[in-house]
């Protein structure tokens, strides 16, 4: 009999008891009346019997134990990566924390430096300080011991050159002021044609008073320059062009040769700048009354207006018997 899929499905369902009672009755009727259907049904039942009669295999006796062991292995395998994961994560977290801490420390360090630079007290003698018309001069740091050369060269050696068209008048006035300064006896006039040279040696205070007293002749001076020699003639001397009597007095009034040189260098720069500026001068912030300052006989000291005034400035180191040497040269411009 040629297989009929629809019939095979029906007969199979009949065998398996998957038909309704009516369908079962119908199949039984068909098999009873049709030998081919009955034969096919027998073929299918025989074949089915073969597989139904296959002996049932039994699971291994240790299957349950194997299941338990497998569960334990799985839990271990799941834990191991977790542990590894955690350790890697923990290491990563620790590294990130370390980097963060380092970054914070570095940032604090940078901020500290910045804040320190902003708030740190300005050392004495460093940086610009507003003054009463004169360039503020650096004061010796009380915390720093001056170098030995400064102590040894406590004196001052300089040369003030005054060029004038009225040499006679100026010479008379200078000679009188030198005599009045109390430096007489050290006056060494050196008369040369169109030139007068006075070599003056004395105390710093005495020379300072002399220079201050010369302010009256400055109105006749066409050009004035002060040369300040370095201690022991070491190095190039500092020359201040177009120097004013106040500047000259300020330089001489310094407590040490180095301070005088620094003051002279400052004035030299300032005067060169003023020469190149419109009007040819740098006007002071505060109106300056030379008569008052010079009349008092004392050289005005810069008034510090900087932020740090708490640190007391030690009294000026006594000069002892340090001598100041100043050569005044009067040169006729005629």
């Amino acid at each position, binding site marked *: 009999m040629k297989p009929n899929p629809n019939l095979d499905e029906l007969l199979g369902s009949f065998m398996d008891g998957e038909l309704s009672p009516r369908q079962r009755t119908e199949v039984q009727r068909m098999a009873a009346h049709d030998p081919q259907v009955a034969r096919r049904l027998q073929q299918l039942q025989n074949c089915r019997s073969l597989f139904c009669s296959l002996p049932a295999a039994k699971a291994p006796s240790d*299957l349950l134990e194997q299941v338990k062991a497998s569960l334990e292995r799985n839990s271990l395998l799941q834990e191991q990566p977790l542990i590894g994961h955690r350790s890697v994560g923990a290491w990563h977290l620790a590294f990130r924390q370390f980097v963060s801490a380092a970054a914070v420390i570095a940032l604090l360090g940078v901020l500290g430096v910045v804040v320190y630079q902003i708030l740190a007290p300005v050392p004495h003698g460093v940086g610009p300080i507003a003054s009463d018309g004169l360039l503020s001069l650096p004061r010796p740091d009380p915390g720093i011991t001056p170098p030995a050369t400064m102590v040894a060269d406590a004196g001052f050696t300089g040369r003030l050159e005054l060029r004038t068209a009225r040499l006679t008048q100026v010479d008379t006035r200078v000679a009188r002021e030198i005599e009045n300064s109390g430096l007489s006896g050290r006056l060494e006039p050196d008369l040369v044609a169109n030139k007068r040279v006075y070599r003056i040696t004395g105390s710093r205070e005495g020379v300072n008073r002399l220079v201050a007293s010369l302010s009256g002749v400055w109105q006749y001076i066409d050009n004035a320059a002060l040369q300040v020699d370095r201690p022991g003639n070491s190095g190039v001397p500092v020359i201040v062009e177009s120097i004013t009597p106040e500047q000259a007095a300020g330089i001489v009034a310094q407590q040490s040769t180095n301070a005088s040189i620094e003051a002279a260098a400052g004035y030299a720069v300032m005067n060169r700048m003023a020469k190149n500026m419109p009007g040819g001068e740098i006007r002071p912030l505060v109106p300056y009354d030379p008569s008052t300052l010079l009349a008092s006989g004392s050289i005005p000291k810069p008034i510090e207006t900087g932020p740090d005034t708490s640190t007391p400035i030690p009294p000026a180191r006594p000069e002892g018997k340090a001598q100041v040497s100043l050569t005044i040269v009067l040169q006729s411009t005629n």
Partner: protein
Amino acid sequence: MKTVSINIDDSVLVQQSQAGDTTAMERLILKYQHRIYNVILKMCGNADDAAELAQETFVKVIESIEKFKGRSSFYTWLFRIAVNLTLNHCQRSARTATQSLDAEEIDAEGETSQLLKDLLSDDRAVDPALLAQSHELCELAKQSLLELEEPQRAVVVLRDIEGMDYAQIADVLNIELGTVRSRLSRARSNLRETLETMLK
């Protein structure tokens, strides 16, 4: 001393297992381990693979028991896991199995040949006890099963070996009832053809 066996319904054991009662789960495993192993073995044809797949089935059941909602019976849920694992395994090793079958020509000889001839004859019924006693014929039957495609093999094994009804097979395989019927019919027809080939 008389041992009293208490048959506890699957749903109770499942609830106890879901509550963390390991003894209940062990009872479920012990209850179904042989039937699961037998179905898997008939489907894959290798005892070692069957043991491993059965073990994997129960491990998966234990790990998933909390997710079991009871929409189907525990029985069909359990066999669904087993059959799916086995079908996946068979698909992975299909090439090897095919090569093995191609290389091995199996023919019925002697008593086995006569028994098979009687089985395939259409005029009389064969005593199932005789069939079961013939080891060679059983091996031929197993071999013919393995020559079926996996979907057809699954329905035959679940119906004729495990004894599921069509509804249960449809539930396990997640297919329509009509599909079970037609697939089973084609599978039986193919099995008969395979056995006839072995007889020649």
